[in-house]
């Protein structure tokens, strides 16, 4: 609860034109926003341009923004997303590119799994990668927003204009694939020690 209160007062200070509060907001969020932008389009210069516009507009419109933004991170992410989309729409080449690189999941297995170096474990990991890459870009983005950016299911649904059930099903798919990859090696491991 304390965190929430201090955030809100930081926001209020920012709205009153407090440059230090603005600097703190910037420092707190810029790296995560950049991370999102890079997963969104993998174009560093474009992401930085959009971030610059985002923070400039934020400062200039500070008095007109809502005083009770409940989640600043959500607000900034959705604003960055709109800007990136607008910027990318102007660039036709971008949409013809394959979108495999965006929001690519890097799943990690616990250390005991890395000990098993046999063929079937390697095959399992390949299966996992295949299953995950079978997810669409939007689905991967939803997983990313929940797990990396800490948005709630509700917020993910709102930001992506998706039904909350779809968010849930998407994440369920990813976890299911991961579990499938996990369970067999775990079984092998148990056999080894039996």
């Amino acid at each position, binding site marked *: 609860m304390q965190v929430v209160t201090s955030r809100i007062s930081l926001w209020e200070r920012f709205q009153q034109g*407090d440059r230090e509060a603005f600097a703190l907001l910037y420092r707190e969020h810029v790296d995560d926003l*950049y991370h999102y932008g890079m997963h969104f389009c993998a174009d560093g210069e474009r992401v930085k341009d959009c971030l610059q516009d985002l923070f400039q507009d934020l400062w200039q419109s500070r008095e007109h923004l809502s005083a009770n933004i409940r989640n600043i991170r959500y607000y900034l992410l959705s604003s960055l997303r709109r800007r990136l989309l607008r910027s990318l729409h102007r660039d036709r080449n971008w949409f013809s590119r394959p979108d495999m690189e965006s929001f690519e999941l890097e*799943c990690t297995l616990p250390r005991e799994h890395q000990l098993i170096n046999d063929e079937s474990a390697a095959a399992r990991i390949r299966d996992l990668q295949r299953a995950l890459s079978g997810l669409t870009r939007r689905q991967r983005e939803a997983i990313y927003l929940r797990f990396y950016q800490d948005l709630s299911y509700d917020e993910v649904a709102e930001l992506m204009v998706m039904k909350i059930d779809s968010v849930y099903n998407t994440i369920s798919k990813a*976890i299911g694939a991961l579990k499938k990859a*996990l369970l067999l090696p775990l079984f092998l491991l148990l056999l080894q020690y039996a």
Partner: protein
Amino acid sequence: MAIKDYASYTAQELALDESFQQWVLRPEGGSRFWEQWRMVHPEKQADIQLAITLVRGIGFKSYTLDTAQQDRLWETLWEHIGEEEQHSSIKITATTKYTGYKSAWKYAAALLFGVAVSAGWMLLHNPQRAAPMQTLALRTAYGEKKDFYLPDSTMVTMNANTRLLYTATDTGRREVWLDGEAYFKVKHAQGQRPFSVHTYDNVSVAVLGTAFNINSMGKQVQVVLEEGNVRLDLGEASSNNNHELYLRPGEMLTYNKADGQYAKATVLTATYIAWKKGRLEMDNYNLADAAVFMEQVFGQHLVVSDKNLLLRKISGSMPIVYNADTMLMQLGKIFKVKVGRSGDDVWINGK
């Protein structure tokens, strides 16, 4: 949180649950529910473990905007804001409003004399433009440590009970007056605008893109250089009795306020900068050192009844808790002494 029948959940269902994910991903978030639940459901241990592995297993490639890039972006966007605000002639007034400027302090009046405070500091990014001088005053109370960014993007961490006054002139000269302890990470801009830190004890530090710690709290002034280059000016500037010397990274200057004697030594900088990260580094640390610490950070005066207690030395590291009583209790435990209070004094007795 709605009550759900978690006991019937499979590992996969647990891993899908928002509050479970939150517990795994942001343990600092503070809900104790899952820890308690885990204790009363020993039969679910395997499921919980698998669910944790699943939640943690989802990761994404990392991209980072490092501090230098963040600084560059910040500077660019301020330049743009500055230009636009100028065009639309929105006046930014009184930069002293900039931050938690809580109370007037003894030095401010003299230093502010004759200083016209008006337009915004973003103008400084372009020295050719006529930019009036601007000032900024910051302070921290006892038991408080704070990070600030100065208008030129210099990062400063102020220890407790510290006052700082910043001015920048139209020529781009940046000056800081410091009373207390602070760590500076100075932005090294292309124009090499001079940056200097003055203490009220005739010690000044001239800087070029550098990170250093300066402490003028006790009977001495200490300057510890972490990286970069500084020139030190010691003694009254007007007298014949002033000296100039240079520090290299890893060196510390100690200047005695009373007699003006000074010495240079090579030190482990991390020990002197640990406070910035909220840690107390203790290397052959005794109660006298602890007393200096308690005085500086909390304004508490420690009285040690038995001089033999001062012989106890310890080495190690602990987090600084910004609460005087908690900190005293921790120190009491480490030194194995009894701590009592009478008025503003804190008594230390053997056990």
